[in-house]
């Protein structure tokens, strides 16, 4: 078998197992299960259309604003740069878990394959994941730009090539860091800490980059600089892209089409990408497997407990629900991917909001109307009802729009058999799981409340009202997320990432949440238009949400009793 066909086989196997294509095909066409998913996904896609339309309108408006100043290309750079940042951020999870912690490595390593072939197959899977991840950010920007600027064949061909090359450089950078770190630092035994620290470092780094970009976006407050800024076309582009030159090359390649500038930049981007790729192939031959040695083994110290210690540590009997809650708590907090996407995200999102807010106010305006704090403050000073509703929405988003509740059952994975055989009623187990998810949502609401108090200086009474609404909405959204996951839990995974980050249920639940919040928005708007007093509007919203919360919780418990026996493991 030639190297190319061998490589193609490994890549094909990797893609099939990663995206579960074989399983999906089997389920849809052989077992004829899950067919209802097809129209549902279609419906979900239709549901995204209005949001997408809104984004396109926004991009169009920005284009029209920037075009008279000759700065419209900055829009492309921003889109591409945001895409590459996202690739970098997701790349760290994908690369560490795919290169080092995925279980198929145990199967691949003994095969007669070169280390670089194994690594390339993993890299290809990550690339496809990245294309899907960044599509939502990059494609609307590039396509809207292309339509507005009436891009010719050159524009679209180059766009396709640039999009194909986009993940290579950021992924190669992450790969080099990860592979080198695994080789030279003895972190193999502390892989959990590695994933956590790595992720937090990258999140912080990307934030600093954003702050840096934010600062570079606005012109300095002196007339000469302003004049120079506007007289040089693409100056904004260069400022934005100076932090990461490949984004500038990508922009010029896309915008330039088949012109000399376009082709030169395309060649530069593709050439550098290829060089980076070649670099990691060479490096993987030398370093990849060495970092793997001993990785599968986690050791613990051997120590026998004394009789007293054993007596202390053997529980004297908790209620079954408390035991299930304790298990959920421990497993969530001890699995880095779950911890990051559950507990940490509800803390990090509000903190990012603070940083963005304070960043905006520190810039002294002139940033094209993106001064978040100023907008929020204007809003908050105008109408107290809007203050409370806005803060409640912010708290709800921070607390509930994450994958905790919608991956509750999926996270059990292959261990779900234990939940099925223990003599604890499904509704009791589900109630304990609900409590766990809801506690995390509450943590998000509390953090968001603190943030709202710091940035917007909300009055205590307004904060309390907003938090009350968010906590009630949290019950509803948590129950809805759990119902969606329970309907079709994703239990067949070996990499925990699949249970929470690549779980369709998380996406479906987010869409459902957006739908519920939109319905609430229209409900409130109708009440406001009916000229009802602020207290009445808030009271009606609270009662409405509370009724739905109680109803959804009851449905969840009832559904658990029905669904648990049906889930065959």
């Amino acid at each position, binding site marked *: 078998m030639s190297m190319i066909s061998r490589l193609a086989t490994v890549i094909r196997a990797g893609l099939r197992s990663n995206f579960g294509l074989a399983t999906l095909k089997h389920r849809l066409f052989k077992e004829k299960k899950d067919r209802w998913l097809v129209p549902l996904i279609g419906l979900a896609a239709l549901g995204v259309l209005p949001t997408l339309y809104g984004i396109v309108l926004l991009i169009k408006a920005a284009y029209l604003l920037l075009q008279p100043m000759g700065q419209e290309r900055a829009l492309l750079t921003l889109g591409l740069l945001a895409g590459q940042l996202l690739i970098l951020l997701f790349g760290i999870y994908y690369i560490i878990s795919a290169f080092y912690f995925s279980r198929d490595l145990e199967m691949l390593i003994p095969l007669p394959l070169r280390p670089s072939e194994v690594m390339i197959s993993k890299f290809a899977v990550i690339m496809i994941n990245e294309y899907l991840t960044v599509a939502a950010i990059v494609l609307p920007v590039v396509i809207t730009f292309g339509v507005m600027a009436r891009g010719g064949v050159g524009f679209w061909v180059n766009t396709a090539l640039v999009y194909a090359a986009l993940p290579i450089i950021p992924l190669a950078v992450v790969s080099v860091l990860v592979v080198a770190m695994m080789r030279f630092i003895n972190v193999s035994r502390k892989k959990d800490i590695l994933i956590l620290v790595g992720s937090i470092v990258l999140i912080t780094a990307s934030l600093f980059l954003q702050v840096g970009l934010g600062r570079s976006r606005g012109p300095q407050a002196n007339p000469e600089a302003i004049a120079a800024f506007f007289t040089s076309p693409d100056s904004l582009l260069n400022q934005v892209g100076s932090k990461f030159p490949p984004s500038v090359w990508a922009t010029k390649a896309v915008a330039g089409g088949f012109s000399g500038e376009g082709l030169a930049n395309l060649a530069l981007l593709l050439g550098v990408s290829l060089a980076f790729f070649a670099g990691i192939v060479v490096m993987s031959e030398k370093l990849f497997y060495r970092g793997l040695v001993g990785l599968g083994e986690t050791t613990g110290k051997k120590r026998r407990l004394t009789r007293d210690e*054993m007596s202390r540590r*053997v529980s004297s009997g*908790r209620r079954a629900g408390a*035991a299930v809650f304790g*298990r959920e708590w*421990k497993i969530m907090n001890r699995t880095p991917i779950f911890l990051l996407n559950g507990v940490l995200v509800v803390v990090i999102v509000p903190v990012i909001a603070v940083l963005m807010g304070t960043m905006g106010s520190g810039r002294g305006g002139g940033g094209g109307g993106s001064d978040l704090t100023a907008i929020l403050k204007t809003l908050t000073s105008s109408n107290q009802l809007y203050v409370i509703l806005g803060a409640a929405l912010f708290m709800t988003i921070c607390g509930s729009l994450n994958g905790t509740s919608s991956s509750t059952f999926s996270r059990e994975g*292959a261990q779900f058999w234990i939940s099925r*055989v*223990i003599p604890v*009623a499904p509704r009791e187990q589900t109630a304990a799981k609900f409590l766990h998810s809801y506690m995390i949502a509450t943590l998000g609401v509390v953090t968001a409340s603190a943030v709202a108090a710091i940035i917007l200086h909300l009055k205590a009474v307004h904060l309390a009202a907003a938090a009350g609404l968010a906590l009630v909405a949290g019950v509803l959204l948590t129950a809805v997320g759990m119902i969606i996951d329970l309907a079709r839990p994703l239990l067949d995974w070996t990499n925990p990432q699949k249970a929470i980050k690549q779980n369709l249920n998380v996406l479906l639940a987010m869409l459902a949440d957006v739908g519920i919040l939109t319905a609430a928005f229209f409900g409130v708007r109708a009440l406001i238009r009916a000229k009802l007093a602020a207290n009445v509007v808030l009271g009606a919203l609270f009662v409405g949400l509370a009724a739905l919360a109680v109803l959804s919780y009851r449905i969840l418990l009832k559904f658990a009793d029905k669904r648990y026996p049906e889930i065959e493991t």
Partner: protein
Amino acid sequence: MPVIELTNVSKSYNRGKVKAVDGLTLTVKPGEIFGFLGPNGAGKTTTIKMLVGLLRPDAGRIVVEGFDVAKDPLKAKQVTTYVPDYPAVYERLTGLEYLNFIGDVYGVPKAERLERIGKWLEIFELAPVVTNPIQSYSHGMKQKIVLTAALLPGPRVMVLDEPLVGLDPRAAHQLKEMFREHCDQGKTLFFSTHIMEVAEKLCDRIGIIHKGRLVACGTMEELRALDKTEQSLEGIFLELTEK
């Protein structure tokens, strides 16, 4: 009264295209070690999973200690513990945390927990690692912690799927001793195995399943009577499952 009673139990996959278990009827008496044999794909694991409530039969009735598994699942589960063929356990918990979890959900009093945990951890040589995460255990150690957890509630009925796979000779020996001890107390054990020697020496009665149907069931003597030319269980097994 039988402890385990399967009546006309059937289960198929792929919308009826693959019949895994076909009209299975068998009973297991109190204090009996029942060995369940069959070639790969014969329906052993499917039967065991239906017995412990992991799969729902398409037809038929399963009763454990007088409780219908479909109608009264919690009561049936309260008296049964199960050891799967692959030890998928909570890797992020320590061995002791897992045992505590099982003790809590089965409502095992503290004194009994301490006694049983201490005994089985010593027998299975897990005592020095019980505070380590299960993630750090070898396959055999995971198997042993699942067995310890299954023994912890002191169940009336134990259902085990290939329990000897992955165990070292010493642990396998101790497990067989435990089987006998368990059943001498009037409790019941239902297990599947591929090891003919174990089934022959250990089981009070043996059932052989082939293509989803029970082709033979009885004591070793009764099985020998089925085919006078064959004296070993292996020979009988090969004869019955030839086609």
